[in-house]
C-alpha cells in the first residue's frame, strides 16, 4: 500500500529525519497561505501515487505566494500516469550542493531486506547501478540481529563518501532502516536526500510502501495519517463494483469470495482459486472471450457468499452469462459452490440453464454438486475436461448468442 509523498514525509519527520518547511494545499488559497508562511521561493508538487511527476509538468517552482496560487490551479488537473491529484504539497525551495539516494526494499531471492545507497541521487537508480556500479552499494540486513549504525556507515562508505558527510548521513540512513523494519514496509526510499550549500542534510522526496498484509497491524498509523479504510491504494482506485465485491468477501469469515476486479467485457466470471483464477482468466481471453470481471473463490466459502458474489457479477447490465470454473479443488466443497451460484442466479431473476455457460469445478463432494446442477439443467463437466477446454465452451456459448 503506497503512501503519498506528504504522508511519507510525516512519518519521516516523526522519527526525526530532517525535512524542509512545507504544507499541504487542497485549494489555491491554502497554497498561497503556505507559501506566505514558508517565505521565499517554494516548490509545488502534485500528490499522486506515481512517479514521472516532473516529466508531466506536475512539479513547479514559485517565487511569490501569488505565483504559488496560480501554479496550484495549473498543476492540480494534470493527470500523471492515469492519476489525478487531490492535493498539492508546497515546500521551501532549497539550494542543493549534492544529491544522494537511499532505499530499503526486499530481496526476494536472498529473503532479506537490502539497503541501497548511492552518492549519485536524484536520477534513476537502476541507470546509476549500470553505469557507475562503484557509486551504488547494496547491503543485506538481518531480520533477527539488531540493526546498528556500523552497517549504515559501511553502506555509505562503500560509495567513497567520507568526512563529515559520512558522519551526518549515518544516522539518517540508520533511522530509515529502523522505520522500514518497524512498520513492515516493502519500500522506504529517499530520493533525493540532499546536502544543502550550508552543509545541512534534507529529505527532498520520499516514498513508502506498507505491505498490504501488515495494514491491520499498523492500523493506528494508517488512521493517524488519515488514510480511509476504503482506500486500496492500488494502481487505480477501486470501482463501486469492486468495493461491493470486498463487502461480499467481508460479510462472513468462511472462505474467500472476493478479490473482485472489474473489466469491460460481457462474460461474468465466478472463478477460483488463486492460481486457478489466473489460469482461467488467461484461458477465456485466449479463446477470444471478454471477461466482465476477475474474482477468486476458495477455502470453502459459504452458500451465502457464493450466492452474493454471483448476484454481484450478474448485476452488471452488460453481463449476459457467467462461467463458473475452478481447478480441481481440495478443501472447497463443490456442492456448496453449486448451491450458492444457483441461488444467486435464481435470486437475480435469471434461468440457471440459460445463464451459466459452464460449471467446471471437480473435486470433493462433486457428485452432490453435479446432482444439483442437473436438476436445474446446467451444463457441467468433471476433471476429464481441462480448464482451458471449459473456458472455450463458455466463450463459444457467448459467441453463439451474438
Amino acid at each position, binding site marked *: 500500500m503506497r503512501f503519498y509523498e506528504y504522508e511519507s514525509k510525516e512519518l519521516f519527520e516523526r522519527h526525526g529525519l530532517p525535512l524542509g518547511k512545507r504544507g499541504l494545499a487542497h485549494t489555491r488559497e491554502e497554497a498561497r497561505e503556505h507559501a506566505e508562511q514558508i517565505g521565499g521561493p517554494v516548490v509545488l508538487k502534485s500528490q499522486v501515487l506515481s512517479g514521472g511527476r516532473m516529466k508531466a509538468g506536475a512539479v513547479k517552482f514559485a517565487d511569490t505566494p501569488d505565483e504559488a496560487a496560480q501554479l496550484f490551479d495549473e498543476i492540480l488537473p494534470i493527470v500523471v500516469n492515469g492519476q489525478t491529484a487531490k492535493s498539492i504539497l508546497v515546500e521551501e525551495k532549497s539550494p542543493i550542493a549534492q544529491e544522494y539516494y537511499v532505499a530499503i526494499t*526486499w530481496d*526476494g*531471492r536472498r*529473503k*532479506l*531486506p537490502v539497503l541501497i545507497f548511492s552518492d549519485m541521487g536524484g536520477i534513476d537508480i537502476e541507470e546509476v547501478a549500470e553505469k557507475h556500479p562503484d557509486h551504488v552499494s547494496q547491503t543485506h540486513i*538481518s*531480520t*533477527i540481529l539488531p540493526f546498528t549504525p556500523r552497517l549504515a556507515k559501511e553502506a555509505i562508505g562503500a560509495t567513497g563518501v567520507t568526512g563529515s558527510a559520512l558522519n551526518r548521513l549515518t544516522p539518517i540512513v540508520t533511522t530509515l532502516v529502523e522505520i522500514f*523494519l518497524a512498520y*513492515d514496509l*516493502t519500500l522506504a526510499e529517499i530520493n533525493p536526500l540532499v546536502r544543502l550549500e550550508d552543509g545541512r542534510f534534507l529529505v527532498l522526496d520520499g516514498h513508502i510502501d506498507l*505491505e*498490504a*498484509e*501488515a495494514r491491520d*497491524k499498523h492500523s493506528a498509523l494508517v488512521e493517524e495519517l488519515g488514510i480511509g479504510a476504503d482506500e486500496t491504494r*492500488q*494502481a*487505480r482506485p477501486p470501482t463501486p463494483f469492486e468495493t461491493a465485491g470486498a463487502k461480499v468477501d467481508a460479510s462472513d469469515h468462511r472462505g474467500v469470495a472476493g*478479490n473482485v*476486479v472489474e473489466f469491460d467485457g460481457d462474460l461474468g466470471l465466478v472463478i*477460483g*482459486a*488463486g*492460481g*486457478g*483464477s*489466473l*489460469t482461467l*482468466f*488467461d*484461458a477465456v*481471453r485466449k479463446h477470444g472471450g471478454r471477461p466482465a470481471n*476477475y474474482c*477468486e473463490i*476458495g477455502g470453502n466459502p459459504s452458500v451465502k457468499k457464493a450466492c452474493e458474489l454471483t448476484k454481484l457479477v450478474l448485476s452488471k447490465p452488460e453481463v449476459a452469462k457467467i462461467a463458473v470454473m*475452478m*481447478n*480441481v*479443488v*481440495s*478443501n472447497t466443497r463443490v456442492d456448496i459452490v453449486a448451491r450458492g451460484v444457483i441461488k444467486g442466479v435464481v435470486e437475480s431473476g435469471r434461468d440457471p440453464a440459460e445463464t451459466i455457460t459452464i460449471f467446471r469445478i*471437480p*473435486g*470433493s463432494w462433486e457428485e452432490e454438486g453435479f446432482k444439483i446442477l442437473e436438476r436445474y439443467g446446467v451444463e457441467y463437466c468433471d*476433471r*476429464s475436461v*481441462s*480448464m*482451458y*477446454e471449459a473456458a472455450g465452451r463458455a466463450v463459444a456459448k457467448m459467441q453463439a448468442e451474438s
Partner: protein
Amino acid sequence: MAILIDKNTTFIVQGITGREAVSLTRENLAYGSKIVGGVTPGRAGREVYGVPVYDCVRDITARTKVDGAVVCVPPKFTRDAVFEAIENGIKIIVIVTERIPRLEVAQMVELARLRGARIIGPNCLGIITPGEVKMGGVGGPAEDTRKAYTKGPVGIMSRSGGMTTEIANTLTAAGLGQSTAVSIGGDAIIGTAYAELMPLFEADPETKAIAIYSEPGGRMEAELAEWVAENDSRLPIVAFMAGRFMDEMPGMRFGHAGTIVEGKADTTADKIERMKRSGISVAERIEEIPELIQQRLAESR
C-alpha cells in the same frame, strides 16, 4: 525414494484444534500420515481423531521423534509457533497460514537457515509423496487425493496449492505419476523456492522430470533458470505460466500476495523468455504438460 517426506516421516500439527487443522488432521491420517501429536496452548489432554494434544512442542519432542510440523495457527501467532518448532529441533516445517507480514516470514526463514531447518510456505497446501504420506491440505480428503495423485517419475513444484492438484490430476490421467509434489506457497518471500528444491529432486533417483506452475511477480523463475543453466541438470523441466494478462496491468494485485507486476522482470513475458533460454519447456496449456514431459523424456533416452 522421494524428496522431503516419505512413509516413515513423523510430524505434529500446531494449532490442531482449529477448524481447518481438524479436517487437515483427519485427511492426513486417512492418507496414512504419521501424526504424533498436536499443539494448542491450554488444550493439553484433548485428542483430535486420536492424536493427543499438548500445550508445547517440547512436550512432544521430549517423548518421541518428530521430523516435521504443519503450522495452522492464525497469522498473529505464526512466527512464534514456527520459532517454537525450530528451537525444538524440528527440521521440516510446512506453514499453511496466509497473510503473514513479509518481515515475519523473513525472520522465520533466517532462523531456520541458522538451525538447519527447512520451511515450506507460508500460504501453501504442503507436500505429498503419493501413496506414502502427505503433510498439509494438498489434495483434500484422502479419497480425492488418491484420485488426483499417483506414484511415479514427475516432481511437481507449484506457487498455487490448487494448481498443484490440477497438474497432478492431468499427469495421472496421462499415466504419469508423481514422485513428490510441493505446494511452495504464493507469497513474495517463501521458505523454499524452485531453485532450492532442484538439488533434492536431482538427488532422487525416482524423479525423472519436473513440472512447474508459475506466476507473475518475484525473481523465482529467473533464479531457477540460472540454476538450470549452471548445474547441467539431468532433469527435463516443463513449466506452465499463469496470469499472462497481468503484464498489461502493472501495479494491480491479483491472485496470491506474491503476484504483482512492478518491473519488467516481474512480467510473465520476461520469465518465459528466461526459462526458455535456459532449456525449460513452457507449456501454453496445462494439458500440454504430460505430452511435453514424455517428449523430453524420450529425447533424453
